[in-house]
């Protein structure tokens, strides 16, 4: 098993590369999930912004 890990001397490079890749993937997965989750959460307590002003009035002069 240990020689498999050593990979003929290239072990550290191969495993560090795979390790970094795994880390980046997991981080992105977590970030994407959190991105969606807190967007939903922020919705609940988002106050109702004043949407649009009253309808303008048009009147004739003279």
């Amino acid at each position, binding site marked *: 098993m240990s020689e*498999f890990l050593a*990979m*003929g*001397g*290239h*072990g550290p*490079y*191969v495993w*560090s*590369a*795979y390790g*970094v*890749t795994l880390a*980046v*993937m997991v981080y*992105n*997965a977590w970030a*994407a*999930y959190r*991105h*969606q*989750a*807190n*967007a*939903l959460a*922020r*919705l*609940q307590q*988002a106050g109702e*912004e004043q*949407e649009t002003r009253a309808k303008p009035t048009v009147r004739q002069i003279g």
Partner: protein
Amino acid sequence: MNAVPMRSRLWRAFHQLGSPPYVYRLAGRLAPWLGVASCVLLAVGAFWGLVLAPPDYLQGNSFRIIYIHVPSAYLSMGGYVLMAVAAGIGYIWRMKLAHGVAVCVAPLGAWFTALALVTGGIWGKPTWGTYWEWGDARLMFELLLLFLYIGYMVLRMSFDEREKADRVSALLAVVGVVNVPIIHYSVEWWTTLHQGPTLIREGGPSITMDMLIPLLIMLAGFSLFFGWLLCKRLQGEILRRERRTRWVQNLAVEAAA
């Protein structure tokens, strides 16, 4: 019913893609499938690449890094093209949703570009003895691509009004994607000039069949994973962009219940 000509059904589909609630639900339905499929593929591909595939006769085991370097490099470029196409559609047809897709793709593309850079660097160490090998055109290209991504995201963040941020950064994305092939060619031209054809041609000296299969599996796994990430981020983005609409309000109520 199939009297409806193909063209108008396509147009309706394209039109449907424009409506946020439809896309939100579509992304919701797709996400689990993409997630599961990508995990399976990645597991199989990684196992196959690390254990079953033979080491390269020239570079030994360090060659196994190709199974993650090449897919992330492809995603980095594919991601930029997807971002530019989405931004272009958003700009021309003024589809807010397309801009939403471009916003979500950018960070993902940047991450995979960084990944391609790191794995390429690590791979360079045993084969050329240095982490940063100027001779390898691909690393140089990935670096410039990373700057393009960062430039896009920085430009987008410096606008406070979302509408303008979308449209101006869309133009930068289009300008960028026009330049990508030129940069690719010039970097390639530059490296063959300085160092002669390097040991590693595009796909590796000689990809035998049993090396190619895990590579393709990993490529599929990476792409589906990218798709899953995109679905999740897109849902978040749609919620944030459409937070004042009715369907989002009652969605929030449902989620809270």
